[in-house]
C-alpha cells in the first residue's frame, strides 16, 4: 500500500520534472518568440554543459546575457510558478526573465513560510497555505535563494535573467535554446554549484539560419549537504 503510494508520488514528481518545467519554459519561450516577430528568421541554439571531467551537468541554466541590440525584452512577461509539493520547491531551479511575477502556491497540507534574503530580491510570504499568496515580481537580475523559514531543508533558486532566451540542461547536460532570431548573442551559463564565475562562461555566438553547437565547461563543486527532510511525506 505504502509502496504503491510512494510509486505514485514518484511518478507524479517525475512528471513534474519532465513535463511541467519544460512546458513552462516552452510557453515562455514561445511567447518571447512571438513578441520578437520582426526578425523573421530564427534558429535553435543547442549544446552541452560539462564539468571538468566531461560529464554532463544538469540543472545548469544557459541564458543570453547580451542580446542583439535590436532585440527588446518583453514588457510584460508571463507569470511563472514555484510550487511547494511535499515540502519541496518545484522546480528547484526556476529561470525567469526580469520583471516576471512568480506565484508560490502551496500544495501541501501544512503551512510554509517562503522567504529570501538575496540581494536580487528580499521577500517574505509569512505562513500560508494554498494559493492565497500574492505573486512576487522579480525585477533585478541575479540568483534569488528561496527558503522556507519553518523547513530548513527546503530550498530553491529563482534565476532572474535579462532576456527570455534561456534553457536548462537535462540529465545529460544537453540544452536547446529555441527560435533565436538572427544576431550576435553573448551566452553564459549558471549552475548552483558552479565555481566558475559567470562572466568566465561567456561565449559570443552568431545565430543565422543555423547556430553552432556550444559547449560550456564548468568547475562544479559537490552539492552542499542540506538538512534532511523529515516528517510525513518525506522520501529522502
Amino acid at each position, binding site marked *: 500500500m505504502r509502496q504503491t503510494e510512494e510509486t505514485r508520488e514518484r511518478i507524479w514528481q517525475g512528471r513534474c520534472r519532465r513535463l511541467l518545467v519544460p512546458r513552462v519554459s516552452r510557453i515562455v519561450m514561445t511567447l518571447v518568440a512571438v513578441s520578437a516577430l520582426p526578425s523573421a528568421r530564427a534558429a535553435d541554439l543547442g549544446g552541452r554543459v560539462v564539468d571538468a571531467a566531461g560529464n554532463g551537468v544538469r540543472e545548469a541554466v544557459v541564458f543570453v546575457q547580451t542580446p542583439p541590440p535590436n532585440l527588446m525584452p518583453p514588457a510584460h512577461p508571463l507569470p511563472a510558478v514555484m510550487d511547494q509539493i511535499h515540502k519541496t520547491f518545484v522546480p528547484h531551479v526556476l529561470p525567469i526573465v526580469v520583471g516576471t511575477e512568480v506565484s508560490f502556491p502551496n500544495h501541501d497540507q501544512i503551512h510554509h*513560510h517562503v*522567504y*529570501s*534574503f538575496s540581494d536580487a530580491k*528580499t521577500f*517574505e510570504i509569512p505562513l500560508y497555505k494554498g494559493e492565497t499568496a500574492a505573486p512576487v515580481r522579480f525585477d533585478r537580475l541575479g540568483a534569488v*535563494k*528561496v*527558503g*522556507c*523559514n519553518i523547513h*530548513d*531543508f*527546503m*530550498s530553491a533558486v529563482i534565476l532572474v535573467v535579462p532576456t527570455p532566451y534561456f534553457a536548462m540542461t537535462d540529465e545529460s547536460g544537453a540544452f536547446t535554446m529555441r527560435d533565436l532570431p538572427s544576431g550576435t548573442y553573448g551566452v553564459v551559463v549558471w549552475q548552483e554549484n558552479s565555481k566558475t564565475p559567470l562572466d568566465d562562461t561567456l561565449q559570443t555566438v552568431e545565430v543565422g539560419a543555423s547556430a553552432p553547437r556550444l559547449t560550456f565547461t564548468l568547475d562544479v563543486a559537490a552539492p*552542499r*549537504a*542540506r538538512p534532511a527532510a523529515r516528517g510525513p511525506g518525506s522520501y529522502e
Partner: protein
Amino acid sequence: MRARWWRRRRLRSKIFLPFSVLILTILLATVWVVGTAGGAWVERSIKGQFEVTGNAFRALMAERDERLRGETTLLAGDFALKRAIATYDPDTLASVALNYRERIGGDLLWITDRSGSLLADSRERTAVGTAVSGGAPLAVAIATVAPAAAVAEVDGGLMQLVAVPVLAPDPIGFLVAGEAIDDATAAQLHDTTGTTVSFVTRSRIFASSWPPAVRTDAAQADPPVTREQLARAAAVAVEQTTFLVRQGRTRLLSILIPIDAALPEPLYALVQDSYERALGPLVDLPKRAAGLGLAALVGALVVGAILAASIAAPLQALVAGMRRVLAGDFVQRLDIRCEDEIGYLARSFNDMVAGLEERERIKETFGRFVSHDVAAAVLGGHMPLGGEWREVTILFQDVRGFTALAERTAPPVLVGIVNRLFTEMVAAVEAQGGVIRQFTGDGVMALFGAPVQHSDDPARAVRAALDMVARLPALNARLAAERLSPLRIGIGIHTGDVVAGRFGPDRRSEYGVVGDAPNLANRIEELNKKLHTTILVSGVTAARLGSEFHLGRRVVLPVKGKDKPVEVVEVLGCESATCQVGYARDSALRP
C-alpha cells in the same frame, strides 16, 4: 687482627654491636623498600590523577563545545536573526550580537557576513568590517558551510570558538560564539580534580589555576612554569610522559596534555601536582625511621647492657671465685641461682671447690700418702675423725746402717735413694690398706686399722712388711747397677689401743694416734738391730695372726723405756711363696 679486636671487646659490646647492625640493616632496608615502593606508588597515583584531570578537561571541553554548538546552531536558525542580518545594519546587528550573546551565555558572539567579514561583535572590541575569517573555526565553517569548532586566540586570550553558518537557505552570514578558557576554567578544573592546570604554549601562559603572583611575578625565584620547562616539556609532550619541575623546595610532577588549537604554536594543558603533597606521610618516613632507629639502638644498648650484665655478673663472680681458689680459699661457695648454663657452671664450680676443699682436708689430715681406698672411706664419711679409742696395728720400718750410708753418700744421691725406697715402702703399705703416718728420715710409720678399720689389720700389717722385704731385692739390684750399696731394712709391728683423731691447731691438724703402742712398735723395730732379724712382731700382734704366716721363735726381751719385758716373734714368711723371708744368716733367733 679483626678477630683479636673482636676478642678484646667486652661482652656488652659483643651483644650490642650485632643487635645494632641488625636493627640498622632492617631499618635501612625498610626505608629503602618503602621509599622505592612509595615513590612508584605516588607516581602511579599522580599519573592516575593526571589522567583524571585530562579526562575531566576533555569532558569539560566537549561539553562546552556541544553546548556552544547546540545553542549557536539554534540561534543561527532564528528567522529574526536572519532578517536582522539581511538588513546589514551595523547598529542593529551590534545590539543583536549583545542580546544573543546573553541568550546563550557565552563570552563572545560575532556576527559575520557570508565571507567572514565582521558585522557585529558582542564585546564591541573588534571593528566592523574586520575580516575574522582568517582563523579557525570560521574559515572551516565558510569552506564547509557547516558548524566548526576550534580553540583560538582572541584579543590575547584563549577562546573555545564555534562558527555556525546562518542559512537562508544558503549562507547569508556566520555566527561565531566563544567561551573563554581562562583562569576560571583552570580553577574549575583544579576544584574538580585537585591538580593545578595551566594553559600554555612554549612562549605563553594563557591561563592557570596558579595564583597570578606565583605565575607571572618575575621576582619569583621558581615559577612553576618557565619557558625552559615548557620547551623541555614540549619535546616530550608527544609521549605524554611526566616530568619533574622544581619550585623552591617543592617538586611538581607535571604532564602536558596537547590541546587541538588554531594557534601558531602547539597548545597544552599543563597539569601539575606536588610530589611532596602526594607523598604525604611518606615524606617524613626517613625522619621517622631515623627516630625509630635511634630508639631501637638505645633499646639495643640497654637490652645489651642488661643481658651482658646478667651474663657477665655471674661470670665475674666466677672469675673472682677462681682467683680465691687460686689463693687457697676452698671454703667459699658461689650464690648464683640460675637454672641456665651459667647456673650449671656455678654449680660445677661449687662442686669443684667442694672437691678441692675435701681433698685439701684429707691431704692436711693424712699427708700426701693416703691410698684411694682410705680417701674414699674418709670422703664417704665412714670414718670418724674425732678422737676415739681404737685398736690399731703400727708398723715401723727402718734402714739398717743408714747413718753410715748417709756419711759416705752425697746428699742428692742419698735423697734419691731414700725416695726410691719410700716409693716401694708406701706402695707396700697402701697395697694392704694401711696409712703412712709419718716418714722418719730413713723409714716410715704406718697405721693399719685407723682411720679405716679392717677385720684383719694385724695380718695386713705383716703382709705389708713381707711385701716391703720382697720389694727390696729389685730395688737393690737397681742400686747395684748404679754402683750403690744395697739397702737392708728392719720392720717392727705391734698391735695396741690408741686414741685416734685429728691433732694439732686448726689449719695444721693431722690425723694421728696417741698411745703407748707406737712407742712399743718403734722399740720392737729397734730390736731387729740387736737380734739381726728383719721382721719382728709383738706377741699381741702374733696372737692375732692367722696360720698363713710362718713365725719364728718367741722371745721375751726387756725393752728401753718399758718396765716389763716384751714378747716378740720373728716373721719368717707366709703360705704364699712370694713372701718368704727366712732367717737372716746372723739372726739371733736362728734355732
